[in-house]
């Protein structure tokens, strides 16, 4: 099989739903609505045209309700499109949410066979792989227990173990891994890496942008049912953070201050001076802060802080700490922040900026988590931070 073979191809794919509220449909409501206008409609997915090559891992990101799960359902064939078509070549396996195929009264062992049968794995294969499934899930003492006594994490572990052993050509993952504990999440991600090495195709819906960035070869950004961007993970994820993350996403930006001095505009530049939002580990990063002071302010302090997209506080400093006292500001001007070398690793980050008084009593203007940027690590080094290292060998 050549690696350029298409695994998933969608043309003009769309799914329209009737808005019918939360209540399930009944004959009564159907009869009652006979004379009335047709109910409101909305497109969960509209005019989606894309291809996924075999062996690629494609992340699907977007705010809640953007159509991510509809897209996965259409590819899996469980949702019938309203228009267009989608083709998927090979055996598809959806990672079931919280053991959808489980029966609470059956034991773990019985549920493994049930779940496998639902996923279309021949019984013989399951029998052969049973020990590996149990070992992977790490539940060997609990297999004869009814799964109703399992924790939600144990449910997911068992479900993932079965799905992983089902050896799919196309794996659809819909935000389920977040339930397991950290150790199991790492195990799952390891398993996904193994599938990637075996040239399997993976469609990966997640809000864990860090994971998407790390695992996906490319990313689709959905918004209101439309694919608004597709491409390299850092750029697309950055665009997502910039444009849509307010909509039910994890980032909560805010600004406050007396506005005696204001941050007017901020420009990110890379080492070569080009405007960008994506930086490289180990290279320089420049931030130009254009400000306006409405009156003369004595001894102001410019500060910044950086958080990861998950909210982890990474670093914060200001002109006071760095001992770059500013006499006074008035009118308009530019303050330049140089971070060189940039010791952050791959991921999405949020920059906060502030202008305040020397004694911290007056906050003139603070923009919290306002400026997202992405970092790409091409150095090959691993870990949480990039350390400037030098080796010398004497013999």
């Amino acid at each position, binding site marked *: 099989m050549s690696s350029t073979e298409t695994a998933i191809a969608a043309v003009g794919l769309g799914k329209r739903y009737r808005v019918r509220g939360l209540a399930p449909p009944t004959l009564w409501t*159907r009869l009652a609505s006979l004379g009335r206008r047709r109910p409101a409609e909305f497109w969960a997915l509209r005019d989606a045209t894309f291809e996924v090559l075999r062996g690629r891992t494609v992340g699907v990101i977007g705010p809640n309700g953007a159509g991510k799960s509809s897209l996965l359902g259409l590819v*899996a064939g469980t949702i019938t499109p309203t228009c267009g078509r989608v083709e998927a*070549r090979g055996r598809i396996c*959806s990672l*079931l949410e919280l053991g*959808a195929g489980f029966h609470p009264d059956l034991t773990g062992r019985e549920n493994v066979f049930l779940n496998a049968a639902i996923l279309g794995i021949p019984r013989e294969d399951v029998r052969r792989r049973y020990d590996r499934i149990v070992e992977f899930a790490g539940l060997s003492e609990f297999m004869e227990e009814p799964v109703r006594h399992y924790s939600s994490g144990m449910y997911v572990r068992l479900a993932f173990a079965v799905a992983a052993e089902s050896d799919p050509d196309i794996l659809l993952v819909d935000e389920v891994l977040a339930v397991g504990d950290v150790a199991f999440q790492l195990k799952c991600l390891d398993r996904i890496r193994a599938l990637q090495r075996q040239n399997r195709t993976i469609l990966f819906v997640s809000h864990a942008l860090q994971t998407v960035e790390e695992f996906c070869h490319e990313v689709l950004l959905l918004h209101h049912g439309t694919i608004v961007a597709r491409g390299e993970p850092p750029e697309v994820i950055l665009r997502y953070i910039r444009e849509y993350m307010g909509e039910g996403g994890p980032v909560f930006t805010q600004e406050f201050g007396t506005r005696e001095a204001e941050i007017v505009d901020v420009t990110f530049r890379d080492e070569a001076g080009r405007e960008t939002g994506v930086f490289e580990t180990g290279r320089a990063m420049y931030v130009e802060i254009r400000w306006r002071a409405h009156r003369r302010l004595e001894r102001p302090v410019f500060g910044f802080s950086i958080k990861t997209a998950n909210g982890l506080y990474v670093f914060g400093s200001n002109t006071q700490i760095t001992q770059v006292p500013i006499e006074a500001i008035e009118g308009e001007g530019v303050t330049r922040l140089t971070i060189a070398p940039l010791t952050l690793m791959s991921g999405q980050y949020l920059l906060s900026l502030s202008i305040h008084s020397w004694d911290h009593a007056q906050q003139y203007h603070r923009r919290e988590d306002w400026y997202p940027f992405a970092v790409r690590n091409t150095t090959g080094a691993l870990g949480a931070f990039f350390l400037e290292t030098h080796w010398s060998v004497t013999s």
Partner: protein
Amino acid sequence: MSGESSTLLVNTPSGPRIIPARWWSPSDLDLIRALIARELKGRYKGSVLGFLWAVIVPLFMAGIYVVFLSLLMGRGLSVERIIVGVFAWQYTAQCVMAGLNSITGNGPLVKKVLFPRGFLPLSAVLAQLFNYGLSLAVQFAVLAMLTLRGGPGVDADVLGLPLVVLWQTALNLGLALLLAAAQVHFRDTQHLVGVALSAWFFVSPVMYDLEWVRPVIEAHPWVEHAVWLNPITPILVAARACCIRSVDWNPPPAGWVGLLWTPLILGLGILVFRRAQRHFADLL
């Protein structure tokens, strides 16, 4: 897996299709078996008497009818006839209720995995068939006991029983498919079915015999047609004819017509279910 990796799933507004189309594969059999096992084990796990409940419930009901009919009406139907009638009726009634919820009760599964949706009502019916098999064993044990005490006994007609069970199973499957699809689209179907089922029980010769309605039939001959055109009537009468020596199977032409409901309802069920299943995931 190499052979399977060439399959192509094409999903269009007319529904998902697998190419090359396969009519049947061994893993389908595994799936049906697993679903039946889930249905049976799931129901009786944790209850002390387990599978015995499948037999105890119809046995109790038969007992109630025997006692109260003889108390109230002064003339009960013979115990054999009531047992055979109630057990067969219970099979259909259980299939209707289990089939009805077979899709709505598996919402997460239907939304996430593509497998032939018809397997859910099918396995619900087959699980009930298994229960019916158990209760038939009890039925014949009771009949044998009654024979020792001067009952009519069993003759070679009993060999026809598998055919009757098959015919009834086909009817049950047709009803299960129809109602499962209806229940997804209209959630109040189950209330209507609950009422309809008790009405159906009273117009069917479960706790009575067609001999009982003989006076009515003589006054109004059309009643005989109406009674026999009930899809379950010929099945109940045939089941009694197979299991009880003193009951014969010689229905009027309307009885033979009544038997034709089975292929009709099964065909309609398959047709409706196939059309409706496209929208299951949207409505669950």
